[in-house]
Each structure stands twice: as C-alpha cells, then as structure tokens.
C-alpha cells in the first residue's frame, strides 16, 4: 500500500485566464448615506477621500425612488458603504 505518488496538481481553472479582481466599476452599485438614504447607480470612479462619481444615480428612501440624477459627484464624508447591487 505504498501510495507515494504525489497528490495530483490542483485542477486547472475553468477559465483560461484568471477572472478580473472583484470590481464594482461599471456595475450597479449601492451605497448608503449616513441618514439611511441609499443612492444606487453605476460607479464611474472614486478617490482616496471616497469621493464618488456615479452615473444614472437614483436616491432611495424606504425603498422608494425619491430622486434621480444623471451624473453625480458625492462628497466622500457622506459615504457609509459601497456594495454591488448585483452579485459580482
């Protein structure tokens, strides 16, 4: 019972190249302002202060859309979190 063969190499990934790192850029993104209002839109970019540029922004209060804007700049101090609206 001398099974000295090395374990098989890990299975090759299904995709030929590794998937890109998780990113919410260009995908619908949720973020919550401190007071419980949520803004949802497509994240264009952000900087070190968490200032955010967003496209197709909708403002949600209690699940209802209260406002919508085209492009928006959101000052970083108002950001509580950023999450992908749909699973990455």
């Amino acid at each position: 019972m001398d099974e000295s063969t090395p374990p098989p190499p890990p299975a090759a990934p299904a995709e030929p190249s590794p998937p890109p790192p998780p990113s919410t850029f260009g995908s619908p993104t949720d973020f919550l302002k401190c007071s419980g209002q949520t803004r949802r839109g497509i994240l264009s970019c952000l900087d070190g202060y968490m200032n955010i540029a967003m496209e197709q922004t909708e403002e949600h209060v209690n699940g209802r859309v209260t406002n919508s804007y085209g492009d928006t700049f959101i000052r970083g101090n108002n950001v509580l979190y950023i999450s992908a609206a749909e699973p990455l």
Partner: protein
Amino acid sequence: MDSASNGIQEPFDLIRLSLSERVFVKLRGDRELTGVLHAYDGHMNLILSDVEETIMIVDQVEGVSEGHTTVNIAKRKMEMLFVRGDGVILVSPPSRG
C-alpha cells in the same frame, strides 16, 4: 470603460467639467441649491452665482405615528454664494447628451 470615454479619471473631473454650468447641489440640513458653478476646491467649497436655495422644513405632527409629516418648502434667491464644502452631500451637473 464608459467613464474613460467621458474623460473622467477621478471624481473631481466631473466637477471640473461642470464649471460655468448650472449645477444641482444637495446640502446637509435638507437644503438644495441650483446655481452656476464658478469655482471649487478640494474641500468642495463652491462659488455659485444666480442661486436658488430650496429648504425643506419637515414638521412632525405631535402624537401621530411616523409618516404623518407636513413638508414646507422655502425658497430664496441669491446673486452670489460661497458654500462651505463640509455641507455638501452631492453635486449633480447638468445632463449632457
């Protein structure tokens, strides 16, 4: 990426592209402004002209459950305005097609 085609690499580029345009600004304390953006800095201090301020005054009705509120809207106009950056929540430039 779409944002690259707009020439937006960082969020402030969105503001830079809105200079001399009418912008919507959402402020702390249920205030909103629309005005022509003349200048801004890294704190988001803003210089606006031809400004209309909208103040939402929410009155909670006493003894009634949440949701029974009356919202009064006050508006005023100002020729020129300096906005301190820490009050800014959101700036939305005019939609460009």
